[in-house]
């Protein structure tokens, strides 16, 4: 779906890009015919989930993503949420990192050495994310909002959205503030209203036909901060 929408946006930029578009569409059709690479990545993610790793040589299979140890069904749709054992709100990536450290005995430095991957080699987080998100297909996105730290986290997210910062004075709302705006031909969804954001966020993590890259929401927002001319928001 995401890939299709992207293809359509590309098609509109016609003339100068006509040839590229034709190539893109051809590549997309081929991909559909062969079975989406997203499915292959899901399988790779599943292998990683089950693979014993780290000093303790255990898998992540007992990791509690909020629905109970090892329960993956609907877990992604209910993140971020508050975790008592860590006494803080965690999204998928931070929870996975927590499990890598507590279950597998891995260091933060080692586990986060490669958060974002490349077209030919997605990162461990990207592969795990697409596998785990796949177990929430059809589940309504409902992050935690009842616990006080969850509420505080939500309020902080909203404040960050409208916070003007960086060398070019942008906030998220500079680009994602009004309906129907574009950067070049790329449509910019309004994201501060849950009804509008939910269907958009449900398409992530995403496989990008344009770059043949598997990308997570963390990657997307990090790249938006790059455009905002700040440093990266994912401290390692």
């Amino acid at each position, binding site marked *: 779906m995401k890939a299709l929408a992207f293809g359509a946006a590309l098609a509109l930029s016609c003339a*100068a890009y006509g040839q590229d578009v034709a190539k893109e569409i051809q590549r997309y059709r081929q991909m559909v015919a062969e079975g989406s690479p997203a499915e292959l990545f899901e399988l790779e993610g599943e292998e990683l989930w089950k693979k014993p790793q780290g000093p303790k040589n255990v898998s992540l299979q007992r990791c509690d993503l909020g629905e109970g140890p090892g329960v993956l069904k609907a877990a992604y749709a209910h993140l971020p949420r508050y975790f008592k054992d860590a006494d803080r709100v965690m999204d998928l990536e931070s929870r996975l990192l927590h499990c890598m450290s507590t279950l597998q005995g891995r260091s933060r430095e080692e586990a986060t050495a490669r958060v974002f991957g490349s077209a030919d080699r997605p990162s461990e987080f990207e592969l795990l994310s697409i596998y785990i998100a796949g177990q929430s297909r059809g589940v309504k996105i409902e992050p935690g909002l009842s616990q006080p730290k969850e509420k505080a986290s939500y309020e902080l997210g909203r404040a960050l959205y409208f*916070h003007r910062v*960086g*060398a070019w004075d*942008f906030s998220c709302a500079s680009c994602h503030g009004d309906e129907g705006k574009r*950067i070049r031909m790329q449509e910019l969804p309004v994201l501060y209203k849950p009804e509008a954001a939910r269907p958009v966020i449900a398409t992530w993590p995403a496989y990008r036909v344009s770059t043949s890259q598997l990308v997570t929401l963390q990657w997307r927002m990090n790249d938006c*901060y790059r455009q905002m001319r700040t*440093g990266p*928001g994912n401290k390692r």
Partner: protein
Amino acid sequence: MRRLALLSAVLAFPAMADPTPADVQGIMQRDFHPRGQATMDRVVQDGLQRVCTETRDRPPADVAKALEADQLKTIVYPEGSLMGDWKRGEAIAQSGRGLTWNDKPGDPAGGSCYNCHELSPKELSHGTIGPSLRGFGKTRGTGPEVQRYVYGKIYNAKAYNACSQMPRLGASGTLTAAQIKDLVALLLDPASPVNE
């Protein structure tokens, strides 16, 4: 006394739940890290960014006026003509490079103009965050007053609209005086495709 203090702490809770721009800045300083030319000072707000954040980009009229007057003082006009070469201006308007963590310091930057504006009718891939600038010189004139306005607007968009979503491209050190002159020509020169 003790009871009172407790009570006010409880009453203060809803206010504490609403993070201020200063709280957000503290969190960015804790969690963000520098990369390339994007050093940590990038997450420290200046006065204008702070006021725009506090007022959700709608400052009261008198505050907006004071901010705009302040920003107007940052504009440095070069000697002589403000009109450069529209052909070079077109290339600068196309380029979205500059000041990001993966741009090399010292490499020429662009204005990202097409990211947000329609300019030349030949470029169909343009954004819509800003108004269309097609035919700008034809409709607004090309005299010294208009040249000064366009130069100033590109140098510091906030001098004319305090919480504009357009970056301060001269004041931030993104574009040089020569580049801004080329962009003035792109908008105003009768030979520029913008005025076709």
